[in-house]
């Protein structure tokens, strides 16, 4: 892709740091409507929540280090598993993806900012109160919600005040996500630079466009589900209360109608990031661009018709089981197209293995492994054996952590020079990758064995036969957790004292954001570029 370049700093009367005409200090961050500022806040918020959720994960693994230990009491353990899931999904992964979207989408399509700049500010500032509600629920009478992140009734109908905090937090985060999605769709559909047709957009923008459609379709459904839960708890309705003629399984249907597309909401932006990194460090255009776009759309559409594979043990009719089983397996086809195209992009490319590429390849390898175990779970006769075991925990952590989180790390190393104008310590970043890769596998690979041997998830203690692999997993988890402090150090060191980054630090990069100086000026593309 080529474009007519444009001297942004000079055009907008900005100083050499690219900052002008905006408040300074704390007010800059509270009142900002600039997509780069808001993207930065999303990313820091996501990292903060990642650390909070990570501490909860370490509490879980400390409790499970040996059978018979009681580091925390069982009720608190249940709260930890619940909050860890909610915080990682709604507080870390989704805001992280929105942070990347805020920073990169306007710059990649040649737009001056997001379409609704004030709403963008509001979308972000809804998140901290929601996070406070979630974490604060630990301190209310009865403790935090402890029924798992899926919030299944009837347990959640009987739970204490912490559940109400959780429901309100989900409402707020849902509203934030819907506003963010509307903003992203409007920006992409209406603010693309002249010549930037939809099929010329970088794949990251495509994945986010489709993700935003998914979000608008499913977040209101989750909001509806938790609203019904709330009215069951406090206003005498019986949507999910069997005692009043309701149906608890109904909640599972509604929840997973949201919950399965949610998996793709989290992974599709990661696909987009990886689709930017691999061509850059292969020094080749992305193989099969159009098929990648159609594959993402196919994954999104299929994600709506597979939700009940999470419910194979609830007594579905045989026809339903067969439908959901085969529909789930169908997702492997577009996903396979994507994996094939990433490999074909690398094939005969001039590969170099900088940190972003290492994370992208790590993503490719481990996400594919997670995908394969997903296929195993999709086979209903097997699923009834491994439902609610550690096999499932291993599967979704290979998708969520080695998939999305690795892509986020790769994306951060890829775009950090553009964000802060400084290079990071490449050796440390490579060390971060290798430590993360090894410790991740030490943590989660043994969980496949534990699950196949029958260890149930969400239990604070277990039989002696599971002791060895649990100890290995716990050691790995602490290694993985502490490795992420290295990531924090690398980023802060780069921001404070990294070597100055050129406008285009990666010779294979071709998208529009690399035509502006590093760091990106506060305002970019106020006069739209022309994309050839």
């Amino acid at each position, binding site marked *: 892709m080529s474009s*007519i370049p444009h001297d942004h700093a000079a055009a907008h009367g900005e100083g050499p740091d690219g900052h002008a005409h905006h408040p300074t200090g704390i007010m800059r961050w509270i009142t900002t409507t600039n997509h780069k500022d808001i993207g930065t806040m999303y990313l820091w918020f996501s990292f903060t929540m990642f650390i909070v959720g990570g501490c909860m994960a370490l509490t879980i693994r400390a409790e499970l280090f040996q059978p018979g230990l009681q580091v925390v009491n069982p009720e608190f353990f249940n709260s930890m598993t619940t909050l860890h899931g909610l915080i990682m999904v709604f507080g870390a992964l989704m805001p992280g993806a929105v942070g990347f979207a805020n920073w990169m989408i306007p710059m990649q399509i040649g737009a001056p900012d997001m379409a609704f700049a004030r709403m963008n500010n509001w979308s972000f500032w809804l998140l901290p109160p929601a996070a406070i509600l979630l974490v604060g629920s630990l301190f209310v009478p009865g403790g935090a919600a402890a029924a798992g992140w899926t919030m299944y009734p009837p347990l959640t109908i009987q739970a204490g005040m912490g559940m109400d905090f959780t429901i309100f937090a989900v409402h707020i985060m849902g509203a934030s996500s819907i506003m963010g999605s509307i*903003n992203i*769709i*409007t920006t992409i559909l209406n603010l693309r630079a002249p010549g930037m047709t939809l099929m010329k957009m970088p794949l990251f923008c495509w994945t986010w466009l489709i993700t935003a459609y998914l979000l608008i379709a499913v977040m209101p459904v989750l909001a509806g589900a938790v*609203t019904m839960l709330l009215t069951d708890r406090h206003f005498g309705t019986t949507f999910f209360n069997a005692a009043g003629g309701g149906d608890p399984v109904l909640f599972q249907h509604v929840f997973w109608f949201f919950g399965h597309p949610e998996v793709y909401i989290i992974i599709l932006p990661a696909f987009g990031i990886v689709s930017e990194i691999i061509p850059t460090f292969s020094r080749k255009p992305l193989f099969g661009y159009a098929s990648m776009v159609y594959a993402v759309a196919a994954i999104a*559409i299929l994600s709506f018709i597979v939700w009940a594979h999470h419910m194979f043990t609830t007594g579905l009719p045989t026809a339903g089981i067969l439908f959901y089983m085969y529909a789930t397996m169908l997702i492997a086809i577009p996903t396979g197209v994507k994996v094939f195209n990433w490999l074909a992009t690398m094939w005969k490319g001039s590969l170099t293995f900088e940190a972003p590429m290492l994370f992208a390849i790590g993503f490719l390898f481990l996400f594919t492994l997670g995908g394969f175990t997903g296929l195993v779970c999709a086979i209903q006769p097997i699923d009834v054996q491994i439902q609610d075991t550690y096999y499932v925990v291993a599967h979704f952590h290979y998708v969520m952590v080695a998939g999305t989180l690795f892509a986020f790390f790769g994306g951060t190393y890829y775009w950090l020079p553009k964000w802060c104008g400084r290079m990071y310590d490449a050796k440390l970043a490579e060390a971060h990758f290798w430590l993360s890769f090894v410790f991740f596998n030490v943590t989660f690979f043994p969980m496949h064995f534990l699950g196949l041997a029958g260890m149930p998830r969400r239990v604070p203690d277990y039989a002696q036969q599971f002791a060895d692999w649990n100890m290995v997993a716990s050691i790995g988890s602490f290694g993985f957790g502490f490795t992420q402090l290295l990531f924090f150090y690398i980023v802060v060191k780069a921001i404070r004292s990294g070597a100055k980054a050129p406008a285009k630090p990666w010779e294979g990069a071709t998208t529009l954001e690399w035509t502006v100086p590093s760091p990106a000026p506060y305002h970019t593309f106020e*006069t*739209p570029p022309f994309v050839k």
Partner: protein
Amino acid sequence: MDTTTPPKPDDARRQRSANLRTALVFASIAVVFFVGIITTKWMGGPTIGIGVMGVAVLVFLVFAIGRNVRK
């Protein structure tokens, strides 16, 4: 478009209206889904409710993506 010519005020107004139209369409979809899921549950028939919602989502996605790809 000539890259040296900044957008005219008329263009900016048109742009804002187009943005607002797009946003309202998507906001209304979100509201329909939120109210719809509760209403279908309230009126009973979980299978029918979920089925209708599922078909609505599919038709919406096919229409929305297809319409934009053609551009």
